[in-house]
């Protein structure tokens, strides 16, 4: 049986996200040693982000299906209009619970469940966006012993979301987008 992953990268991103993810995911090696879970706010009825971004990436992208067992080297996207959560056994769960502060999927919901299920094994990343989703979740990741990265607001297409996350005082690293992939690789070196 495949060994259970005890570490995961979770990413929250909103306005300006397509370009940011194109750059970040495009810079990750296909054999990146952790699973990556992403909540991107989208208008409902948008097409699959995984499909439209795959072209730019070596690493494999997919839209999350409920029950997926997360494996290293795959990036899972929350489906439009569903919250994405991760269970302690490393499977993905979806919910149609009400939007959290107008957002479904919600970054906070993903980050909270990751912190609860994987504790110190979580690396949380907040990128460009125009709201404050993710700040609370980033704090929970930090409290659980995880690692936190915030895109430098000065470098973000829309500064508000990273700025809010930064102001919550729990960022371990503040980095321009171009340096985040590299940092993720350094942080996870030797992990499997």
């Amino acid at each position: 049986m495949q060994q259970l992953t005890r570490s995961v990268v979770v990413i929250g991103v909103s306005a300006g996200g397509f370009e940011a993810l194109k750059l970040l995911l495009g810079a990750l090696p296909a054999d990146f040693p952790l699973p990556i879970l992403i909540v991107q706010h989208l208008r409902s009825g948008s097409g699959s982000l995984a499909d439209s971004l795959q072209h730019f990436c070596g690493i494999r992208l997919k839209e999350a299906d409920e029950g997926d067992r997360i494996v290293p080297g795959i990036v899972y996207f929350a489906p439009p209009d569903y919250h994405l959560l991760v269970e302690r056994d490393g499977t993905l769960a979806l919910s149609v619970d009400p939007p959290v502060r107008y957002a479904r999927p919600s970054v906070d919901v993903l980050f909270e469940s990751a912190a609860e299920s994987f504790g110190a094994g979580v690396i949380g990343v907040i990128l460009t966006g125009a709201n404050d989703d993710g700040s609370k979740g980033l704090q929970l990741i930090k409290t659980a012993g995880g690692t936190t990265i915030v895109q430098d607001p000065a470098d973000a297409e829309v500064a508000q979301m990273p700025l809010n996350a930064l102001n919550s005082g729990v960022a371990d690293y503040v980095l321009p987008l171009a340096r985040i992939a590299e940092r993720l690789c350094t942080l996870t070196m030797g992990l499997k």
Partner: protein
Amino acid sequence: MDLQRLEEIELRLLLDGVFEAYGYDFRNYAEASLKRRLRHWLAEQGYASLSIAQGEILRDRAVFTSFLQGLTVNVSEMFRDPKFFRTLREHVLPFLRTWPFMRIWVAGCAGGEEAYSLAIVLHEGGVLRRCRIYATDINEAILDRARDGIFALRDMQNFTRNYQLAGGTTEFADYYTARYDRALMLPALRENILFTPHNLAVDADFGEMHLILCRNVLIYFNPTLKERALGLFDTALTAGGFLCLGMKETLEIRSIAANYREIAKGIRIYRKDYPD
């Protein structure tokens, strides 16, 4: 002992207690969402921990009722996933028309949004009078709301858009009466709907069905409970009947899958095979 471990113990004790005291079995619900809802309910009610709430939940029916609301209330919308309803209209209705009488089960109907949407599709297909729709939910309070057929007027704009995208053949406004900030669904729509309590975790199925809708309910269950619910549907569904799941739910890895064919890729409408 660390807090997380303690909370796991508290959760297990509480769910065991609730099952023994009230017969509601949440022990096979998917954990992440269940815990989120519990935390939300605890905070809203002002309990510092599950242990503190437990005594009151077990001893006071009113507290249990509030707990049940917190854990089970789902909000849906009419014609959620218009593509699904369009496919139902175009590819399932032609089969339904061939049956003289149809029994339909909407499992996990919440506030009735889906049951009314379905009734509209059946009405426009000219078969509603030949249908009996059993709309069931674990939560009796929400069934009362569903029976009333009253929705917030502000939601009608979204429902209307969904209805049109789903291939509606008339005006959605024909199906409700607006009054102040409420919309009352046309009473004729619910003449063939029976709203009744049913718990997929503990109850048996209830008789032969031609069409079953259970959308975005299984996502809240763990694999054991998913299997149980699908087993009920499989027992109830007649050969040639249809099982409809949520757009992100799949039969693929479930034990009943071998007897079902998805009729339109990605829409999650499955038709049950005839026996060989």
